[in-house]
């Protein structure tokens, strides 16, 4: 087996496991307790895993120019964290 088909086979079997993990994360968002901090934790974990998944997907689909999407996703999810934390602390945003 040459290198290319080896990598492709491995990553193809990695994809459904990632999708299963995403499905379990989203199912967590619809269970009680559903307060705001719990939801923020789940959205965080989902987005960080999605960033890793996008990088793996760009190797699998041979499209190397789609890498900056992962970086942008990680940065803006951090911003979402800060907004919600500052709202809960009821300070001024800024």
């Amino acid at each position: 087996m040459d290198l290319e088909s080896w990598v492709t086979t491995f990553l193809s079997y990695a994809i459904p496991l990632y999708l299963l993990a995403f499905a379990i994360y989203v199912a967590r968002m619809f269970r009680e307790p559903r307060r705001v901090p719990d939801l923020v934790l789940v959205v965080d974990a989902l987005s960080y895993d999605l960033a890793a998944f996008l990088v793996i997907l760009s190797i699998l689909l041979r499209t190397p120019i789609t890498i900056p999407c992962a970086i942008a996703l990680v940065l803006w999810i951090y911003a979402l964290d800060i907004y919600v934390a500052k709202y809960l602390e009821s300070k001024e945003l800024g």
Partner: protein
Amino acid sequence: MVGDPKTLVALIVLFSLYANLGASMYGVIARKNLVKKLICLTMLGDTVNVFAILVGYRLSRGGTPVPPVFTEWSKASEKLLANFVSRSVDPLPQALVLTAIVINLAVTIFLATLILYTHRHFGTVEMDRVSEMKKGELVDEVEVS
């Protein structure tokens, strides 16, 4: 016919997007809170953008589709160019959606400002109360004049 995986996935995607469209239109029309209307309006715009992107997508015969960025040009590469053209998705809907997202952002910020001034004027953002108060104001104006 539905047993074909491509047709099945296309049906799933279309029905999901129609469900999103219907749910967010219900939110825009039937919910009384103005902030909830604003959230539903952003989701409605995003769903319409997904529809526009979905028009430009296609499944090529020679493998997976690629984004419309051509990276490996050289002088003797007509074959590369032909391969790229046969595989890439349509860039025109992407350019249109890029504009639409930014205009949606501007409209949303404008509506947020209007909601903020509604709250300062009436003290509430519930649509029923606002209309009751506006009725009262109209009666006052008529009595004064």
